[in-house]
């Protein structure tokens, strides 16, 4: 008998039987099945016996054995809800410390959740105001040169593709075409106002639902030299007078205003002040041979309106056919076309050449994951603390059960309690949300344009649903484990209560929380070090005290002469771009030794003062000489160009005098520069750089300034600017500030990371505090007796905190290697010129977290260790 006793029937089948069977029949049935099972184990072996048991359980599912649904209980549960709420309130009031720990912990993390919900709601409402938003798709394209598909899709397409689709592709209703570079100064009489906009074709107002206040939406953008203004820009130009039919001047051409539209809504991925008719652009650029080329796919956006119920795969096939046919017009190049739904532009793939700022999938996902971790961590806290308090609550549950509470009712009681707490936390979280919201939005410039996070009734409902969901998630485990408590056990022996056996699980939770905390803070510190490293990175030339002024179309020489009169100005040079902050100009250069071989070379046009002003150092040769004619004959290259084309056996001295063919011109190499960072210093590409002699208008003035009193100097500079150009604001930035702006993204992630790290640490500490208070309270008597026996305070401190310290050490030893591996093997290898990982930043974060935790543990345990043992033991 004893042998077969060890073999028990299948657990699942037993539970099934218990679940469906009427209670008055259950015991007998179980017994019978057990008896048969024992018999079968002996006669037919364990496996057969188990199988038979399962089959029998299923066979017993008959009308007379199945229990009736307990409608009555559900009804009672509803009636009891009021009582649950009342007792929950009492419980929260009675344990003020635990309740406030829970409310604050949940509230802090829920505020992150609220921001997340508000952000998702904002992003989700993008472009939904277009009545046909479900049917609008954007044509995106991929440039494949000689079968090389490494390029990703671009948000743009070629003008030719857009027009082909509009004219000849069947299965589309209409195509709105937008073209960049309409932005510019609008002149009206004496007024000059810079406005941003696009060229748009006549279908624009048919595809999109932007409303015209005045003018005919069908013809507004049809005729050449028509222009549509938004209400705000019309107000700027014309005030209250009617703008329709008036003419304004843009770039020396007259345009007639044919429409005034409502301002572009916030939640539109298209943002503009005005639109010019695309037909104008086609007239202006009619001599441009590249305009209608199949592979010039960088400047046009096409939005296709599809009929209802379109067969997308079929449409994709006809797009493929179109590109196969058009590919013949360009050598070695294939342009792949695809469609992207309008509503996915804001949160979809991170395409290049977007028409405006977009959020993209990756940041949204990262934020989602981070908030998820924070929220789950806080839920853990609640679970953890509630189970820890089982000690005090088991008797309550025991009495409830004795009086006749069902399991579901006890569970309901605990669920209501956790939902109440999470609703209270919501109030706290909401206040925090209102406080954090402006800081969150102003964290990154693009966020300011994208999000408003305004409250709406729907949002409030979502918040409440969210809070209830969090309450249910956090409360489910405590509710289940408390409701399991057997009434008799609850009074007999507290250690037998199942809820107290979950110690290991709670330790795991705590290690998890601290691991996350340490990872978050260490990652933030590392990112901060990288950020500092990059903004101070030695670019290979000097950027100190250099102020870059955007000329905005003004004559460089006039401004230069004015500026040089100031005594603070030590030098002025001209360039068409600023290096080292992610500006690129690229062209093809031919290998002097092999005309078949050509490669992309990045370049900047500079005047003869530029290189000395920026302290560029020459490996060989000399600088440009000032000269009057406008013919470009010379070039200065860096060593990567020599390496790429193998000029002069890569020896700078020998390379001098060699000819490089660029843009159809033969340029003599007159100098070789030491390598410097042309683009962003964290980018691996664009190493081949040449400096070309500026022969026409520059875009920027680089002014070297030594000033004792910067505000006065700035005011003087601005006065000079105003004298030359009264219309445009003075745009001048120090080189170092521009470099800082370049790494703003990194800076923003440091801020987000820091904020989240703080949250996670905060939550982990609150959780730890709860656990420590609980453990020390349980051990109060033990500690008192030890003290009576002569234990020292230090000894007690060690005794009480040793367990927690061990957990912290485990968390650290999980977190640090993980973080190190992630940065060392995954992230940093992709970043050029990154700072190496140092011991300091690896350990600093962990040290702070551990110190904090230690202070917490020590403060609580010392309090207990210092209590008078007589007081404790007397009260028993």
């Amino acid at each position: 008998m004893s042998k077969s006793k060890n073999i028990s029937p299948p657990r699942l089948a037993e539970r099934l039987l218990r679940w469906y069977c009427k209670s008055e029949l259950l015991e007998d049935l179980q017994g019978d099945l057990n008896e048969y099972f024992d018999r079968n184990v002996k006669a037919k072996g364990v496996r057969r016996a188990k199988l038979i048991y399962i089959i029998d359980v299923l066979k017993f599912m008959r009308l007379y054995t199945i229990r009736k649904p307990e409608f009555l209980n559900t009804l009672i549960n509803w009636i009891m809800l009021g009582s649950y709420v009342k007792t929950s309130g009492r419980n929260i009031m009675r344990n003020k410390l635990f309740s406030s720990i829970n409310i604050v912990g949940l509230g802090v993390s829920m505020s992150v959740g609220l921001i997340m919900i508000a952000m998702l709601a904002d992003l989700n409402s993008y472009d939904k105001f277009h009545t046909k938003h479900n049917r609008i798709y954007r044509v995106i394209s991929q440039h494949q040169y000689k079968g090389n598909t490494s390029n990703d899709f671009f948000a743009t397409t070629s003008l030719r593709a857009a027009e082909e689709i509009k004219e000849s592709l069947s299965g589309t209703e209409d195509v709105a075409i937008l073209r960049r570079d309409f932005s510019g100064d609008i002149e009206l009489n004496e007024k000059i106002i810079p406005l941003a906009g696009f060229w748009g074709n006549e279908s624009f107002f048919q595809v999109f639902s932007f409303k015209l206040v005045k003018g005919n939406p069908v013809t507004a953008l049809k005729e050449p030299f028509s222009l549509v203004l938004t209400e705000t820009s019309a107000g700027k130009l014309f005030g209250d007078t009617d703008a329709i039919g008036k003419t304004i001047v843009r770039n020396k051409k007259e345009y007639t205003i044919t429409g005034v539209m409502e301002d572009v809504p916030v939640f539109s991925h298209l943002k503009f002040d005005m639109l010019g008719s695309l037909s104008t652009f086609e007239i202006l650029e009619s001599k441009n041979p590249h305009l209608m080329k199949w592979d010039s796919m960088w400047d046009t956006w096409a939005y296709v309106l599809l009929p209802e119920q379109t067969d997308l795969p079929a449409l994709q096939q006809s797009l493929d056919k179109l590109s196969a046919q058009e590919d013949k017009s360009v050598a070695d190049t294939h342009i792949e076309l695809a469609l992207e739904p309008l509503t996915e532009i804001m949160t979809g793939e991170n395409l290049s050449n977007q028409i405006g700022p977009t959020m993209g999938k990756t940041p949204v996902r990262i934020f989602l994951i981070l908030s998820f971790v924070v929220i789950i961590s806080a839920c853990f806290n609640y679970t953890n603390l509630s189970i820890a308090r089982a000690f005090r609550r088991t008797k309550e549950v025991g009495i409830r059960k004795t009086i006749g509470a069902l399991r579901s009712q006890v569970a309901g009681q605990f669920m209501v309690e956790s939902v109440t707490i999470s609703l209270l936390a919501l109030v706290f979280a909401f206040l925090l949300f209102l406080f954090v919201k402006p800081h969150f939005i102003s964290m990154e410039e693009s966020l300011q344009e994208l999000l408003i996070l305004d409250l709406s009734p729907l949002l409030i409902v979502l918040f409440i649903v969210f809070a209830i969901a969090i309450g249910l998630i956090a409360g489910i485990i405590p509710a289940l484990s408390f409701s399991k408590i057997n009434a008799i056990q609850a009074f007999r022996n507290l250690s037998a209560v199942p809820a107290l056996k979950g110690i290991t699980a709670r330790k795991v939770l705590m290690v998890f929380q601290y691991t996350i905390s340490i990872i978050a803070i260490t990652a933030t510190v590392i990112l901060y070090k990288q950020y500092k490293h990059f903004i101070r990175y030695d670019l290979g030339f000097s950027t100190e005290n250099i102020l870059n002024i955007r000329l905005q179309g003004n004559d460089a020489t006039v401004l230069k002469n004015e500026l040089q009169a100031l005594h603070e100005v030590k030098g002025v040079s001209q360039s068409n771009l600023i290096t080292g902050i992610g500006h690129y100009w690229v062209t093809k250069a031919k290998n002097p030794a092999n005309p078949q071989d050509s490669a992309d070379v990045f370049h900047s046009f500079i005047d003869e003062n530029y290189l000395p002003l920026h302290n560029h150092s020459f490996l060989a040769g000399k600088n440009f000489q000032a000269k009057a004619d406008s013919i470009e004959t010379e070039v200065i290259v860096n060593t990567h160009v020599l390496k790429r084309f193998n000029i002069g056996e890569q020896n700078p001295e020998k390379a001098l005098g060699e000819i490089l063919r660029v843009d159809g011109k033969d340029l003599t190499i007159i100098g070789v520069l030491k390598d410097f960072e042309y683009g962003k210093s964290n980018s691996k590409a664009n190493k081949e750089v040449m400096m070309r002699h500026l022969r026409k208008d520059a875009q920027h003035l680089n002014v070297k300034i030594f000033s004792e009193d910067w505000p006065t100097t700035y005011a003087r500079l601005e006065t000079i600017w105003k004298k030359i150009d009264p219309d445009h604001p003075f745009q001048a930035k120090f080189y170092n500030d521009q470099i800082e702006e370049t790494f703003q993204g990194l800076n923003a992630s440091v801020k987000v990371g820091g904020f989240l790290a703080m949250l996670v640490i905060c939550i982990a500490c609150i959780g730890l505090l709860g656990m420590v208070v609980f453990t020390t309270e349980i051990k109060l008597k033990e500690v008192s007796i030890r003290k009576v026996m002569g234990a020292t305070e230090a000894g007690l401190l060690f005794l009480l905190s040793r367990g927690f310290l061990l957990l912290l050490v485990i968390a650290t030893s999980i977190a640090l290697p993980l973080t190190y591996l992630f940065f060392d093997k995954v992230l940093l290898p992709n970043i050029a010129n990154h700072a190496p990982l140092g011991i300091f930043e690896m350990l600093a974060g962990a040290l702070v977290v551990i110190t904090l935790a230690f202070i917490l543990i020590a403060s609580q345990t010392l309090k207990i260790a210092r209590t008078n043992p007589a007081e404790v033991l007397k009260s028993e």
Partner: protein
Amino acid sequence: MKGTNLGEFEELVLLTIAALVNDAYSVAICDELEKNTGRAAKLGVVHAVLNRLEEKGLVKSKLGEATNTRGGKRKRYYAVTNAGKAALLKAKEVRDNLWSMIPGMTLKNI
């Protein structure tokens, strides 16, 4: 309810309960039935019949003491009620009547 008419299997079960006297619980009834009829008596079927008999008021049941066997579950012992006895007697009577009408010859030739 169809009244106190007994089905064939019901009658067998009822008789077995009566025969087992103080030891009539489901598994024992099954075993006894198998032994006497030579056909397999499925527990599920027997259970259903016992349940029906109890509903008809032909048997009554009570739970026994817990033992170490059967996973610590108590047995439910069945006993035939007076109504049950009456039903059995009536069934026997019907049969006896019918038997008595059969001429002795015919049967002996079987």
